[in-house]
Structures are given as C-alpha cells and as structure tokens.
C-alpha cells in the first residue's frame, strides 16, 4: 500500500490549520463589530414603552387613560398636572420595569408646535434613554389650545 498521499493530506491539514489560526487571530484583532444603530441595545425597553402607551390608551378607563388624562389635565404657572389616578398607574407601571420616565405632550396650537411636560414625570433623561410616542385624538381647550390630536411622548431610561 502506498501511504504517501495520506501523509501529504495530513501535513496539508496541519499546515492549513497553522495558517488559519494566524489569519483568524489577525482578523479578530482588527475587525471591530460595532452596532450601526445606537438603539439596538435598548430595543426591549423601547418595546416595553410602546406596550405601556398601548395599555394606558384604553378608552374605557376614564381618568387613567391617555385620552382621559388629556381631557382632565389641569394647568397653572407653566405646570401641567395629570389626574392623580393616571399618575399613580403610570408610576406603578414604571416601577414594575423598573425604569424612569418622562412624559411630554406635544400639540399644534394653530401656528406653532408646543410642548408640555407633566409635573410628576419631568426628570431629565440620561443619554441612553429611548423615546416612544403615541398620537391620541383628544382635546383640552383650557391647557392645550386648538389641539385636536396630541402626541404623548414617553422617554424611558434605566
């Protein structure tokens, strides 16, 4: 039997392994895999934010829904106060995650876009916060003049 061919193959595999390990080391040390999208890591928190907005936009619940909150919003001295029931429910949801949240109401007053921050949810977010928003058809002529639709923007961070 002639075993020369098999020896060549074995030696070839050994040599190729050496070259492969060298190439692999070079590539591993130079190629940097950076996520091209900064919100990639926070996608779960973002989805939880969308779920929170969806859950509290239940039209059956009066004061604890987004529509009820906007309709019964009270304002004074530049502060905007949500109904206590809404604040309690949203705080409970945020504490359960746990996460911090900031709630902004954005509306068009006929000539410009205005922003209101809810009094109990006005902390400043950290740089890695995520932002979710929901358009709610509701109006409050006293605090949000001329608004037919209000963007409820929830900023979440841990």
């Amino acid at each position: 039997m002639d075993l020369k061919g098999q020896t060549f193959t074995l030696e070839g595999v050994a040599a190729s392994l050496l070259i492969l390990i060298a190439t692999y080391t070079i590539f591993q040390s130079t190629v940097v895999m950076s996520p091209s999208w900064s919100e990639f890591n926070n996608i779960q928190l973002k989805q939880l934010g969308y779920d929170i907005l969806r859950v509290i936009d239940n039209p059956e619940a009066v004061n604890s829904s987004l529509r009820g909150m906007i309709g019964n919003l009270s304002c004074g001295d530049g502060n905007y106060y949500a109904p206590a029931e809404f604040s309690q429910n949203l705080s409970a949801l945020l504490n359960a995650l746990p996460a911090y949240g900031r709630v902004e109401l954005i509306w068009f007053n006929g000539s410009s876009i205005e922003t209101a921050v809810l009094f109990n949810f006005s902390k400043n977010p950290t740089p890695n916060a995520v932002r979710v928003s929901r358009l709610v058809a509701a109006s409050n002529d006293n605090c949000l003049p001329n608004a037919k639709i209000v963007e409820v923007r929830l900023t979440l961070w841990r």
Partner: protein
Amino acid sequence: MEVNEKGQMILLFAAAVVVIILSISYVYAQNVIAGIESSRTMLAFPKEEIRNLCELASSSSTSTDEVVRQVRILCAKNGWVCNYNYPYRVEFKNLEVEYDAQDCRR
C-alpha cells in the same frame, strides 16, 4: 544535487485546503452580518407608529381634515411623513421605510 519536490507538494496541498476553509469562513461571516442586518430591519420597522395611524384611520371622527393636518405636522417634527384617510388608508415614510397601504388592517 538531487531535487526533492515533496515539500512543494505539501505547500500546494496546504494552500488548497486553506483556500477552501477561508471561503467557507467568509460565507459564515457574511451570514452573521446578514443576520444582524435583517433582525435590525425587523426591529426598526415602525409597526407601532403605523398601527397608531391605522387606529386613527379606522374612525371618521379622527379622520377629519383638521385632525389629519395636525397629525402630519406632529409627524414631520419626528422626521416622518404621515397621511391617512378614512377608512384604513395609511401612508407612513421615514428614513428607512416607505409604507403605503390601501387597507392597513391587512
């Protein structure tokens, strides 16, 4: 002097095997990138925003000209192009996605 060509043969075999393994590992590396990109595309798809517009388009009371105008303005602030008509006609465009449906429920 006697010429020994065995060493050259070993190098040739080694080169062939390395080419095969490298090409397989290249395909594998492409798979990882394709996987990351496709999952990112899935996650970045603005399904919640489109669903939101779809809910607004499902009722004639939230599809009046003035409401749609305000929605367009608020969308533009976020860098989106939004438009909808009763019933269930929804358009949504952002940097990555162009969504245009005659019936957004499907």
